[in-house]
């Protein structure tokens, strides 16, 4: 059971206001962590620290493989003025072998030469999630993945996440909507000791 991620005594504060303090947890492959907490309790900051975007004020994070992280944030990192096809090549997923299977499953295969700007928010979110479905990194960090997804896409996402867990991938995500993926829980509201 390889340990993907180890965090001890993490604290993060902005302008002297402490978001969370003394947070320690380990993440093994094939396991998932669901980060809970009210708005502004530092969920996104924690996920940013884990994905290596920002550094904690105190404490440390050790990752088995620094670069192999897939981060899905609020912004879905698509170029509005480019077509879906161009965006796929930007996401470097266009040459992936089962790209067409996922496109069909998410009903995006017909929209390949459509400008992203003319897609609905839900469709854009599904397109952004392709980066998650076709990635090969062993640590998946998701920040509110289900926002804007319809019922059907949420099921696709949850089943995909369960699959990833069997394939020994580590998962850490924050979400208001409960994803039926069995995971340990970290509550940030209680972490402000």
């Amino acid at each position: 059971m390889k340990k993907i991620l180890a965090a001890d005594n993490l604290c993060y504060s902005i302008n002297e206001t402490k978001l969370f303090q003394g947070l320690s947890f380990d993440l093994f492959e094939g396991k998932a962590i669901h980060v809970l907490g009210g708005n502004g309790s530092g969920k996104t900051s924690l996920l940013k620290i884990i994905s290596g975007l920002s550094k904690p004020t105190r404490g440390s994070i050790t990752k088995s493989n620094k670069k192999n992280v897939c981060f899905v944030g609020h912004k879905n990192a698509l170029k509005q003025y480019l077509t879906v096809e161009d965006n796929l090549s930007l996401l470097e997923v266009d040459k992936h072998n089962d790209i067409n299977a996922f496109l069909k499953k998410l009903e995006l295969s017909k929209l390949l030469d459509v400008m992203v700007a003319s897609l609905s928010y839900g469709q854009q979110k599904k397109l952004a999630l392709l980066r998650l479905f076709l990635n090969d990194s062993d640590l998946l960090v998701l920040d509110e993945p289900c926002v804007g997804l319809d019922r059907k896409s949420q099921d696709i996402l949850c089943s995909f996440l369960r699959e990833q867990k069997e394939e020994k991938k580590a998962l850490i995500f924050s979400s208001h909507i409960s994803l039926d993926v069995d995971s340990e829980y970290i509550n940030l509201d209680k972490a402000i000791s």
Partner: protein
Amino acid sequence: MKLINFEFLKLRKKSRGWLGPILVFILIMTAFPLTVEILNKNLEQAFFSILWIATLLVMMLATEDIFLEDYNDGSLEQMAIKYDSLSGLVATKIFVYWVLIGIPISLIGALYGFGITRSSESALQILPILLITTYIFLNVFSFGNALSLTKGSILGTLITMPLVLPLLVVLGKVVIAINLGISFLGFLFLLLGILSIIILILPMIISFVIKAHLE
């Protein structure tokens, strides 16, 4: 290598991004003779200073959303995670902007030079100078843009203008050298020296600034 193709793709498709500055440059250069009456004696003299100021302004406009657009739609975050050091990415981005904006502007500037001073060898002389200066301006102004990423670009230009002014002193000397007809290779190499330092150092500083922004 694929990074360069991506950046080309992104900029090429956004015509406002690269065509806009070039059109503004043409506008400024054509509007300049209108402000000075026909007698060509001082037209030639004023031409070079207008040329430098126009390049400065256009480079300011060109770098307005060089990082802002990627920052707003989140792809900057993805790149920061995927690539360890962003300086390679920043250098490619600036290089692509230079190819699509800097080179056309230098060619057009040289064309105008030929048109107004009617001596092809002076036009050919300022072409390399323009190529180097546009690249230096691009680097410096994208540094200002990166610093004031979310705060609007006026702050960016306010900060970087002082850094660029010493360069205008050098350009002023080049103009004098050209008018006197003496060879200005010395200045060319001085500009090349400045460019080589800036190309190495500024992308690193910019990537440090962007990482700080993303925190």
